[in-house]
Structure formats: structure tokens, C-alpha cells
């Protein structure tokens, strides 16, 4: 393979994607580099009948084609199909950070086209890209291979981080467009997005409805269409509505508690904190102060609270 051959671009089968997983196919930076310096690292090709399959260098060859270059130098290999693919994977992984869409596409090919065992992929490939060798991660990446090109483009162009994109695997595919809209328009953090996926799943399971039905309900749909709220306000509202629906009793108790709490008219620097889930026997007091005078004032406030009958009502929540 270490002899360079002159190959005409017309001899290369650009439609054959056996070893190709690059996404996106275009790369402006690479294009500029090639225009300025030419092909520094030649592509690798494999003979296929009268033409050649691309093993590595797909993006570079596309750029060459676009630039009207007629002939390039390339290495020719005759290793078997799986080895050629593995070579392409390892070569690319060594030179750049693969994105999640490329990784999911590689896993899909390994599994379905090269018939590599799941256990081998988990043990030998996931660590290549910095993932732990977990079954769960494997499953998530396999599912992401089903993203349409349009969905990938949307996520890629919006620069949605991999850790958020991977959570899409927890949504059913027929709702991916909505989930992607949430990711792009409402910009939730990964943890909040994951929590949202759990809440949604639990609601549809318990209420025996589909995600689509849930999202077409006016009070949910309207959040997406709201022209006034900011993206984070929209997400918080969506979260709130879904949490209320998921946990109606907790919501009622918390609302009652907060109403009572407000009646205490506490200075914001003093906080009475109930135990999580109202389970436990003690409240906590949190107090922020700057100087002796403030401390004195808050101490008096606390004494007054202790006499306030509303406090008894709050204590009764435990």
C-alpha cells in the first residue's frame, strides 16, 4: 500500500459508501488547506472491478472533485473489507475528534454490514472515542444512527453538544423532531433535558397516550409557539407544566406550602427550609448577614416568626 498511484477521479466510485462515515461531508477549513497546499496526505482506495472504492479521504476527494481536479495521488490497498473499514476508522480517529453522528454511523456499519459482535464493539471500539465500555452507551449510539440527514444537519448546525444529542435516544423516533426543536430553541442543559425525557416517558406510560398526543395538547403546544418568552423561560414553563402533570399531589402540597410561607413575609435573607419531600422531623433555617446590626434584626425576626401561628401551619406539613 505504500506506493503512490496516479488515479483519475473518474475512476473513483463516489456513490460507494462502504467505508465512509464522515459527517458532514463538506469542510470549509479542509477545502482552504487543500487549495493552498494541495493533497498532503493522499487518500486510500481499494480496487472494485474497474473502479475504486474510497477507504479514507472521502472529504478530500469531494473537494478535489469540486475543484475540477482530474487526477490525484492515492494509496491502493487490497486488504479485506472489514480491515479496510477498521483502517478508515482508526485513521480518522487518530487525526481528529469524530462527532457523535459519525460514531453512531460507524457502530451501525460494524454491526449490520460487517457483522461484528456487539460485545466486540463495546470492548474494542467505544474506548477509542473516550466512551466507557457500557452496553447502555452502545445502545444509545445505535439508536442515533437512525437520525435523518435533516435532523443531523439541524443538530450539527446548531452546535448541539454530543452529551445532549445522545439523550435523543431516550425519545421515540417519531418525536425526534419535537425533541430537537426543544434542544435547539429552548437550549436546556443536558441534565434538565434528560430529566424532561424521563418525565415525558412517565406521563405517556401512565396516561396511556402517545408523545404526539401530549405535544399536540394546546397548553403544551402554545409554549413552543410563544413569541414573547425567552428560550430558557419557555423551557422552564414546559418543565413546570410537565412536572405538575407528573406529580399532581406533590405540586398541590408544595403550592399550599409556598402560599403559607409567603404569608410569613420573611426577609429574603432568612430561609426556612423543609426537609426534602416533607420527610423528616426538622426544618432548617438559613441566614445570610453582613454585620452585627443585620444579625440582630434577623434574630428579632426569627423570634417573631416563632410566635407566628402560621409557623405552626408550616410545621404541620411534616
Amino acid at each position: 500500500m505504500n506506493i503512490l498511484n496516479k488515479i483519475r477521479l473518474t475512476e473513483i466510485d463516489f456513490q460507494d459508501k462502504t467505508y465512509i462515515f464522515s459527517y458532514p461531508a463538506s469542510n470549509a477549513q479542509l477545502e482552504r488547506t487543500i487549495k493552498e497546499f494541495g493533497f498532503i496526505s493522499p487518500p486510500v482506495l481499494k480496487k472494485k472491478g474497474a473502479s475504486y472504492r474510497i477507504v479514507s479521504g472521502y472529504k478530500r476527494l469531494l473537494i478535489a472533485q469540486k475543484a475540477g481536479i482530474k487526477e490525484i495521488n492515492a494509496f491502493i490497498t487490497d486488504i479485506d473489507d472489514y480491515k479496510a473499514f477498521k483502517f478508515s476508522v482508526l485513521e480518522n480517529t487518530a487525526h481528529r475528534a469524530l462527532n457523535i453522528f459519525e460514531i453512531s454511523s460507524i457502530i451501525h456499519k460494524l454491526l449490520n454490514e460487517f457483522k461484528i459482535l456487539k460485545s466486540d464493539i463495546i470492548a474494542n471500539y467505544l474506548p477509542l472515542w473516550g466512551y466507557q465500555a457500557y452496553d447502555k452507551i452502545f445502545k444509545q449510539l445505535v439508536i442515533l444512527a437512525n437520525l435523518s440527514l435533516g435532523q443531523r444537519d439541524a443538530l450539527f448546525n446548531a452546535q448541539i453538544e454530543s452529551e445532549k444529542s445522545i439523550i435523543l435516544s431516550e425519545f421515540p423516533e417519531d418525536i425526534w423532531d419535537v425533541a430537537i426543536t426543544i434542544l435547539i430553541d429552548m437550549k436546556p442543559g443536558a441534565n434538565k433535558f434528560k430529566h424532561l425525557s424521563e418525565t415525558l416517558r412517565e406521563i405517556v406510560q401512565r396516561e396511556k397516550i402517545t408523545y404526539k398526543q401530549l405535544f399536540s395538547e394546546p397548553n403544551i403546544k402554545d409554549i413552543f409557539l410563544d413569541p414573547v418568552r425567552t428560550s430558557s423561560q419557555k423551557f422552564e414553563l414546559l418543565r413546570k407544566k410537565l412536572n405538575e402533570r407528573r406529580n399532581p399531589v406533590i405540586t398541590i402540597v408544595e403550592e399550599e406550602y409556598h402560599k403559607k410561607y409567603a404569608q410569613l413575609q420573611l426577609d429574603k435573607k432568612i430561609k426556612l427550609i423543609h426537609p426534602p419531600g416533607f420527610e423528616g422531623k426538622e426544618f432548617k433555617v438559613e441566614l445570610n448577614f453582613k454585620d452585627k446590626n443585620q444579625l440582630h434584626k434577623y434574630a428579632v425576626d426569627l423570634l417573631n416568626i416563632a410566635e407566628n401561628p402560621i409557623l405552626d401551619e408550616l410545621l404541620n406539613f411534616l
Partner: protein
Amino acid sequence: MKTQYPYNPNRLVIEESALNAAFTQKILSAFPDVPKQIVGQVNEIKKSGHSQYKKKEFIITDYKGDMIKTCPGCVGTVNCNYLVANIVQGCPFGCTYCFLQDYMNSGSIVICGNLEKFFEQLTQVQRNGFLVRLGTGELADSLAFDPILGLTDEIIPHLKNVPNVIMEFKTKSNYVENLLKHDGSEQIVIGWSVNPQIIINHDERGTASLDERIEAARKAANHGYSVAFHFDPIIMINDWESHYIDVVNKIFAAIPAYKIAWISMGVLRITPSLKSIIQERYQNSKLLAYGEFTMSQDGKFRYFRPLRVKLYRTILNAIRSYSTKVPVYCCMETDQVWQEVFNAQPSEQSELSLIFDRNTVYAGSCQES
């Protein structure tokens, strides 16, 4: 039985020092054709995840530590001094919520071959004038392997020597054939975890149906054993009231109240790590979708307290409509909940009208099976 029984081992691993123990030999002779491997020490066996495959591997050990322990209890819940004997660890069944998925390093079934040590310790747990409750179902289903291991055949004859020990075998199976070979005794309680059939169908794979469990309980009770029922874990499925009341109705239609030693109630409780396991392994299970969870002081998710109280009261009232005498208690619950359910502090409740009317060391069970 062995041919129809679905949980025969396909590999036996034996710790060398357990090889000559009588119980080990009994197991080995029951499976002459199963491949065997003898290892110096059990920890030489590579630890691996909980899996169906591993459930067919039996590891017979020479257990060095205490075979009878006080149930560790949980932070913030009513402490109990129930004793547990972990002779078998691991279970062939596949309950979605089973904490063993998170607790055990290996999915294999671990069996203590040196049963003599257990019998020795059994004589030491008796306390003057007190009855002691001892359970075997903390890290296993007590009867799931009884058709092939015959553990009850080993234990029951020894119990005559320790009259102050009340031994509970807790199960979701209907494997009572071995028990029926022995004389029934009130000293032996066979406890069935029960749930509506719809939950059994979805989340208690491999276990006996509700009707089979109750029929097995009826046989055991008729044979002279005490029986117990554990509403555990209670799951807040849609229309849970009628489902759970139906279970109570079925129990009391089949078993006279005076034969029931006790009934416990405990809601679903899940650690965060178990929650992740359930989400990953059982994506179609609705277990986590029912009820409303909050984090308890012991680090487990439980239903919001008012919901728990409502669940317990509903089941308690259904039980009380049949019997005011059957001892009922809450499992792994806070004293706030006890107070709201029973109008009594746990100490008063557990002082115990339970079992007990006798001087039992304690009431309350920490078993999970």
C-alpha cells in the same frame, strides 16, 4: 421435579474448603452431569454483571463470616431487629425492582455449603424468654431453589432444637412440596410476597401467579405451618385501590385469619443506582411511571408520604374488614408514617400486638425479596 424445574444450574463452582461439607455433597450428587470447577477461594472467580446466564451458575462457598446477622435497617426508618440468614444469595426470578441487581457483584447464585456453621449459630441466637424472628429471604427468594437444593429439608428438622426461633421462609414461588413432607409447625412461617396479578405479569418475571401463591399458602396453612403475607413492594398502578383490595379478598377467601402470623406492607423503594438499572434494562416497564416519588432520608426514592399513608390505610382497612387480630406492620417506614397509618408509634404498635402476643424480640422486617 428436576426435569420440569426451570432453574437447574449449568455450571457448579465449588470453593475447595467447602467440598466435603454434607450440603455441598448433596448438591453435587444431585447434578452429576453438570460441569464443575473447584477453586481455591471464591473471590478467584471473575466478578461480572448480573445476567440471566450467570443465574445458571451456582457457586458453593465455605462461608467464613456470621451466617446470621441483624438486618441492617435503614436511616430514618423504624429500626428492627429482625435477623437474617443468608444461606443462598441470588434468585432465578426477574423482578424489575429487585435490589439484587444493584447489590450483587455477580449474577451467579451463591450457596453456603457449610450449613453446619449455620446450625451452630442458630443455637446461639436464642435469647432468654424471647422469641427471635429469623428470615432467609433477604438476598434470595427462600423457596425458589427448594425443589433442587432442598434447603428446607435441612433446616426444618433443626428447628426443633431451637424452639424460641421463629423461622420465616419468604417467597414468590409456589414450591411447597418439600415443606409438605415435614410436620407443619407454627414455629415456621411461610411468607408470600403478594401483588395484583397485573404487576406480577409485568414486573415479577418467573414467579408464581397470585392464585398459585395463595393456593400454596392454603396448602401450607392446612398442613400446620403459619403463613404470612407481604404487600411488598406496593406499586401505585392505575386503579390500585381495587387491585389491592382484590388481593386482600383473595387471601382471606382462601386462608382463615387465625392461620396468618402477620401481614406486612411496604411501598416500592428504589436507590438512584437501581433506578438507572431499571431504566436501562426494562424500558417498557411502567414501574417508575406510577405514583409520585420523593427522596427519603435513607437515600431511596419512595412515594410521597401522603400517598404512602393512603396506600397503607387502604390495604389495612381491607385487612381489618376481615380480621382485627392479624398483626399488620409497615416495612421500612418512618415513625411519622406508622403514626398516621396505625395511630400509634411503632414501638406501641410493634410491642406488639404482633405475632406475637408473645415475647418476640422484634417486629418489622427489612427483607426485600
